């Protein structure tokens, strides 16, 4: 069966930790890190990368355009 899987890459230095990418993710992939970036923000990261489908929801609402989205078809 063909399935799409995805990954996001957050520019952790530019992320402001606003968290608006979190509730729009249908698969609960994203979380804010406990660590800070150099600007003092808890940056977003993939706590659950396997679940990402590359739907781009997070990137669409990210106010700082710091999310890159990758998507690939895989066989399961």
């Amino acid at each position: 069966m063909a399935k799409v899987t995805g990954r996001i890459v957050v520019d952790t230095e530019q992320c402001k930790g606003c968290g608006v990418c979190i509730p729009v993710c249908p698969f609960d992939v994203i979380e804010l890190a406990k660590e800070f970036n150099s600007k003092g923000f808890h940056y977003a990261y993939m706590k659950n990368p396997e679940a990402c489908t590359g739907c781009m929801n997070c990137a669409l609402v990210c106010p700082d355009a710091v999310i890159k989205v990758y998507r690939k078809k895989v066989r399961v």
Partner: protein
Amino acid sequence: MDEQQAKTEDIIKKENLVFDKTKLLTDKAFHYCPGCGHGVVHRLLMEVIEELDIQEKTIGIAPVGCSVLAYHYMDIDMQEAAHGRAPALATGIKRTLPEKYVFTYQGDGDLAAIGTAETIHSCNRGENITIIFINNGIYGMTGGQMAPTTLENMKSSTTPYGRNVKQMGNPLKITELVAQLPGTCFVTRQAVHKPAYVRKTKKAIKKAFKYQKQEMGLSFIEIVSNCNSGWKMTPNDANKWLENNMLPFYPLGDLKTPEKK
């Protein structure tokens, strides 16, 4: 763990990239508060200009408000207007350079308070320009004072007990107002706090530029947005509040299209 790592590397490859920041946004980080909708709208505008390949033909006008430095982020020729005067600048530009695409980017204080005359008359004359109107119901830049669009009973630093409409007047639905003017061809209200809304907003902006090319008159796009700093909420709470309070009063959708006036 190693297996997962390998898989991730497999996916994060140039050919699999489906979303990246448009090249028409500069490398400068937005000065906006975390979660502020201004950033999304900036990005959509630049994506549309990139996709229509009109960077060389576009002149934008920045307002006075939080987005006063919009020209730091947008890699296009821009002018900075006095508070509320962006549509007058746009008129001067478009009248003398009718082949260019001209847009203004304005907040609710800029567009619907101090600049009301410029807004109404540019709409009424049907200037072939695009107005992007960010309605966050408050004066963000100056620290959260009441805006013309502040909701009834909504708190701001100048209405600390809530907007009393008897004393302060009613929130102004300027978008409904300009939709009635013969000079506007496309009047719509959108939002950017949910992915589906973001997609629709982008479509609306694209349409507006197309109508501009066809010289159909003024396109007016209101975007109901947040100001979590001014509203004193976390970004996600602000977006929820927006959904539950702003949208019932400022309902989303097209108010006027060239097909259906």
